[in-house]
C-alpha cells in the first residue's frame, strides 16, 4: 500500500485537520463527533442542507460545504457510513429554525444511520426531511432489494438544493426539488483499477492488466461485470447508453452532464470521455447545457470514471448557475 498517510487509523482525523487549516474562510471542523460545517452556520431562517457518507470520496461531501451548497457534511471512516451522532450534531449545528434536509445516498448503512439521526433530531423538535439518492443504473432496482446506489447525482443535488436553500425556499420545497433532481438524474461508473482501503492495506479486488470492471459503485466494490479493456469511446458508450435509455432521456431534453474521475484517472482522459459523451448526446438530440469534468465523487485512488446526466429545466439551470463557494465547487463568489 503506497499512500501519503501516517497511520490508517488517523487518516480521517488528520485529513479533517488539514481541511480545517486549509479552509478557515469556508468551514469549521468539529471533532468527536466529526462534521464539517459552514463557517457562518446556523443561518437563521434558512433551510439547512446536510449530507454525509464514508470518507474516501473527496471532494464529496466535505469539499461541498459552503455558501450555496451544503451547510454541513458528516464524514465516516473510509467507505463507512458515518454514525447517527454525527448527523444529529450536524443537524443541530445548522438548524436555523427552518428545518434541515438530509441528502442520503442509498446504501443500507447510510440510510440506517441517517434514519436514526433524523429520529434523534426530530425528538428534539427539529424538522428534518430526508431524501435518498438512488441514481445508479448499473444496479437493477426492485422492491425486494436494497435498490439502486446513490452516486453522481448526489453532487448535482447538493449544488442545486444548496442554491435553493440559499434562496430561502422552504424545507418542503427544497426536499421536493431534491426528489425531482434524483428522479431526473442517472449515473453509471467503471473502474480500470481497484483502490486500497487504508485499513485493509491491499486492493479491494484484483483486476488483471487487460480487464476492467463495469457498473462499479464508489466504495471500491467490484462492478456488475468484468470484461476486457476497451477504448475510451467504447467505454463511454457502455456507460452513456444505459443512462440515456433508463430515464429515458429524449431528443429535445436539456441536461447537465458530469464526467467524473474516480480519483486516479488524469483529467486528460476525462476530457477524452467527455468528447465522446458530447457526441453521443448530440446524436440523441440531447443538449448539454452545463458540464462538469473532473474528480467530484471518487473512490480513493481508483482509476476509472463515471458519467451522470441530469435532465434540467429552467429552475434547475438557474439554481446550477447560482453562486457557490466551496473548496470543491466554486463560482460567482
Amino acid at each position, binding site marked *: 500500500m503506497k499512500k501519503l498517510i501516517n497511520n490508517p487509523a488517523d487518516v480521517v482525523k488528520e485529513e479533517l485537520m488539514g481541511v480545517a487549516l486549509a479552509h478557515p474562510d469556508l468551514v469549521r471542523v468539529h471533532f468527536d463527533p466529526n462534521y464539517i460545517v459552514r463557517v457562518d452556520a446556523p443561518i437563521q431562517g434558512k433551510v439547512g442542507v446536510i449530507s454525509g457518507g464514508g470518507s474516501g470520496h473527496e471532494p464529496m461531501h466535505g469539499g461541498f460545504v459552503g455558501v450555496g451548497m451544503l451547510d454541513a457534511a458528516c464524514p465516516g471512516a473510509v467507505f*463507512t457510513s458515518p454514525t447517527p451522532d454525527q448527523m444529529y450534531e450536524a443537524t443541530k449545528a445548522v438548524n436555523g429554525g427552518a428545518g434541515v434536509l438530509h441528502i442520503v445516498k442509498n446504501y443500507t448503512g447510510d440510510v440506517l444511520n441517517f434514519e436514526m439521526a433524523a429520529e434523534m433530531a426530530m425528538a428534539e423538535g427539529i424538522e428534518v426531511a430526508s431524501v435518498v439518492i438512488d441514481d445508479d443504473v448499473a444496479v437493477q432496482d426492485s422492491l*425486494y432489494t436494497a435498490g439502486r446506489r446513490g452516486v453522481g447525482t448526489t453532487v448535482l443535488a447538493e449544488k442545486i438544493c444548496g442554491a435553493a436553500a440559499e434562496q430561502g425556499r422552504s424545507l418542503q420545497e427544497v426536499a421536493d426539488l431534491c426528489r425531482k433532481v434524483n428522479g431526473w438524474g442517472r449515473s453509471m461508473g467503471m473502474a480500470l483499477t481497484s483502490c486500497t482501503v487504508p485499513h485493509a492495506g491491499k486492493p479491494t479486488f484484483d483486476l488483471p492488466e487487460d480487464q476492467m470492471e463495469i457498473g462499479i459503485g464508489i466504495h471500491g466494490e467490484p462492478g456488475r461485470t468484468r470484461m476486457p479493456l476497451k477504448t475510451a469511446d467504447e467505454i463511454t458508450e457502455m456507460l452513456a447508453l444505459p443512462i440515456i435509455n433508463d430515464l429515458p432521456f429524449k431528443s429535445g431534453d436539456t441536461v447537465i452532464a458530469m464526467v467524473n474521475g474516480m480519483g486516479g484517472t488524469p483529467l486528460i482522459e476525462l476530457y477524452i470521455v467527455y468528447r465522446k459523451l458530447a457526441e453521443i448526446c448530440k446524436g440523441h438530440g440531447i443538449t448539454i447545457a452545463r458540464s462538469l469534468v473532473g474528480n467530484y465523487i471518487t473512490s480513493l485512488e481508483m482509476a476509472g470514471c463515471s458519467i451522470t446526466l441530469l435532465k434540467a429545466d429552467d429552475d434547475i439551470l438557474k439554481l446550477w448557475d447560482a453562486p457557490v463557494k466551496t473548496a470543491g465547487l466554486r463560482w460567482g463568489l
Partner: protein
Amino acid sequence: MITRDDILAWLKCYRQALGENKDYLTRLDSAIGDADHGANMDRGFAAVLEKLPSVAEKDVGTILKTTGMTLVSTVGGAGGPLYGTFFMRAGMALDGKTEFTPQEFLAALEAGLAGVQQRGKATTGEKTMVDALTPGCKAMREALERGKSLAEALDAAAAAAEQGMRDTIPMLATKGRASYLGERSIGHQDPGATSSALMLRCAANTLGRVQDPA
C-alpha cells in the same frame, strides 16, 4: 443462572475474537462489499471495551444497551445500526437484571434479532447476518425446549449459526452492499453472518462454560 460477569466475559471474548478475525472479516467484505467490516467491528468493540468499566457495576440491561449505543456511535456502516440495535434490544429484554435464566437470555437474543430485522428489513436467504442469527436462535430454543443444558444449547446455537454462515455462500445477496453485485455475490460467504456466528461461538465459549449446570 447467568450472571453479569458472564455477560462481561462474553463481550470480552467477542472483542478478542473480532480482533483476531479482523483481517478475515475484511477479506470477506472485500469480495462482495467494501472491505471494512473487520475494521468496523473491531473499532466498535474496542470502544465497547473502553466503555464497559463505567457500567460494569450496573445491571445487564444497562451493560448491553450501553454496548449497543456505543456500537451505534462508533461503527457506522450497516453494521453499526444493526449490531447496535441487536444489543440495545437484547439489553431492553434484560433490563434491571443482574442474573437470569438461559430462557431469558434466549429471549434477549431473539429480541435482538427481531430488532435487526425491523431495522434492516431483511429476512433469511438474503445473505446477511440474519442468516446466522436466525438458525442460531432457533437451535438454542429447540435445545432448551428439549431440556438440554445451557452449554449444550449455546453450542447448538453456535454450530447452527456457523452452518447458517456457510449457507450464505451459495446465496444471491438481495440486501446490503453485496446486492449490487447481483449474480457475482454468489460463491462468497457473508461477512456479517460471519461476525454473528463468531458472537454466538463466544457465547458458547463463555456463558456455556461458566454456566455448566451442576
